[in-house]
């Protein structure tokens, strides 16, 4: 196995709880991601999955622990190193409505990464590159002068993916990119991300609250619960034989689009909750 491209070691991030105490949103999380890997990070709200990726991309500062990207220690990176990290690691956000500035045209949105990371590019070159990535995500040059509001949610998420792809990143971090979309549109975006992962060889971190989505996109999965890593491993084995009871519970809660199997699953679920007598809520 090659050296990891991204490594988190003992990352801790706490917040004040409003009563003078601290609550750990991320509690000693260690993860290693190898180049080209597709890792799904799964957990419910409050599990710390989003905070973890926000620490990685620098939107939050971890209290302790180290995050290393391709030999760069992010806490002590030089300006040049930081710049390289910013170019090579891109992100797609959850909500396609608020993650695109309503005041910027698609050309400005998608070209922003190029303005920052390829300042010597001429306007025409930049436009060509924008068209190229827009076409990759299934849109065309006609989108360039338009504003986000004239696009549907699925199309907006494509624009957000195009923005992330424009500076030719090595790693793409997706924070629940489909959870705000209709199921029918979800499938389009998942299929697109899967193609990007395979064709461009992108390393992918994919945050989800749902194990089913991850199965279609990732080769390995990490389950988080209350700030800790509950379980991690290849998708095939974690889904077939989850070690943690929590993972099992998450798997059991996912509906199956097959009436007979889903009825059986629901009966199983009822039996197990009665057995446990403890209901999470």
């Amino acid at each position, binding site marked *: 196995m090659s050296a990891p491209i991204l490594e988190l070691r003992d990352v801790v991030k706490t917040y004040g709880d409003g009563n003078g105490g601290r609550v750990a949103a991320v509690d000693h999380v260690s993860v290693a991601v190898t180049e080209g890997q597709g890792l799904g990070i799964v957990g*419910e709200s409050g599990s710390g999955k989003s905070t973890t990726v926000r620490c990685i991309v620098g939107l939050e500062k971890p209290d302790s622990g180290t995050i290393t990207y391709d030999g760069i220690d992010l806490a002590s990176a030089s300006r040049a190193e930081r710049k390289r990290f910013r170019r090579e690691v891109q992100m797609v956000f959850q909500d396609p409505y608020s993650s695109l500035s309503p005041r910027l045209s698609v050309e400005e949105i998608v070209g922003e990464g190029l303005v920052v990371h390829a300042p010597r590019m001429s306007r025409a070159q930049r436009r060509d590159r924008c068209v190229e990535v827009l076409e990759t995500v299934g849109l065309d040059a006609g989108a360039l002068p338009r504003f986000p509001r004239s696009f*549907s949610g699925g199309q907006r998420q494509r624009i957000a993916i195009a923005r992330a792809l424009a500076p030719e990143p090595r790693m793409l971090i997706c924070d629940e990119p489909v959870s705000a979309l209709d199921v029918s549109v979800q499938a389009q975006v998942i299929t697109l991300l899967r193609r990007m992962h395979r064709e461009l060889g992108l390393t992918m971190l994919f945050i989800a609250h749902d194990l089913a989505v991850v199965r279609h996109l990732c080769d390995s999965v990490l389950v988080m619960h209350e700030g800790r890593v509950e379980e991690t491993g290849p998708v095939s084995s974690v889904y077939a034989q989850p070690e943690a009871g929590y993972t099992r519970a998450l798997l059991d809660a996912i509906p199956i689009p097959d009436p007979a199997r889903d009825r059986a699953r629901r009966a199983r679920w009822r039996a197990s909750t009665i057995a446990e007598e403890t209901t999470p809520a």
Partner: protein
Amino acid sequence: MTTVPPVLDVRDLTVDVRAAHGPVRLLHGVSLQLRRGERVALVGESGSGKSVFARSLIRLDDAMTVGGSVQFDGADLVTASERRLREVRGQGIGLVFQDPLSSLDPVKRIGDQVMEPLVIRGVPKREARERARDVLDRLGVPNAARRMDAYPHEFSGGMRQRVCLAMAIVAEPAVLIADEPTTALDVRVQEQVMQLIEEISADGGPAVLLITHDLGLVAGFAHRVAVMYAGRLIEVAGVDDLYADPRHPYTRGLLDSVPRIDLHEGDLTAIPGTPASPFHPVGGCPFHPRCAAALEHCAHEEPLLTVLPSPMPFHDRQVACHRAGEIVHGRTA
């Protein structure tokens, strides 16, 4: 089954709203019956009109012009007086919405909110409180008696949705309409809420109409599924038939879009294009621009919802597709 009169009988429901360029039709003659004890799922993308359907049944929006008929409890809700409607809203038809937080009043105690449908109907306070407590208890709100004095913000998302459910069923309605009740919730909480709704509807409870965009959610829950597209029902069938052999290409597409946890192989297949918008209607079959099976004919003539005969009794299904008879999708589970 057809001999039992339905509790809710919607016939040819149309809904129009005013827009800048004239009226826009959101529902194009939707007919759907709900029988006692039945759980029906209404499935469609955003913009399909599924929420409009629920809201127009009890005329929640003044801006809508509603046509057709909605027979409920001996009256036609389309023409009923506002007073009659108010009665129906709390007592006859219970409603639960997607966002539990915004459907609760943040400055009123949970208990008072759950009691309200009873109190405004003249049930004595003491009795109303007892019934509210019983319902909360039944819905698994721990320490219901004590927590009735709490405020919505002190509850988690799942608990809030239980409170909303309690409000909807406390007056023992004949019909419960739940509009995307689990969308904002985590998977385990979603499962709990779905199980609760099933429990509520069992043994003499209300008929349930569950509205969702996710065909995956309702396979083990619903008895019947109605699929809506562009303000029309395009397929209505018993749940087993629908999943085993979807006849409308759109239903098939929705089914193939659901991420599955139980299958090892097979990529997701997305429906191409964007969901239909009532503001940009297309001629012919509304789905034809996105349909792989579309013929030239489909762009000109709109297919009507017609009954497909089935060899088994009571298994007739309705499909609105010119090619429903010839296309056999043959889905393997």
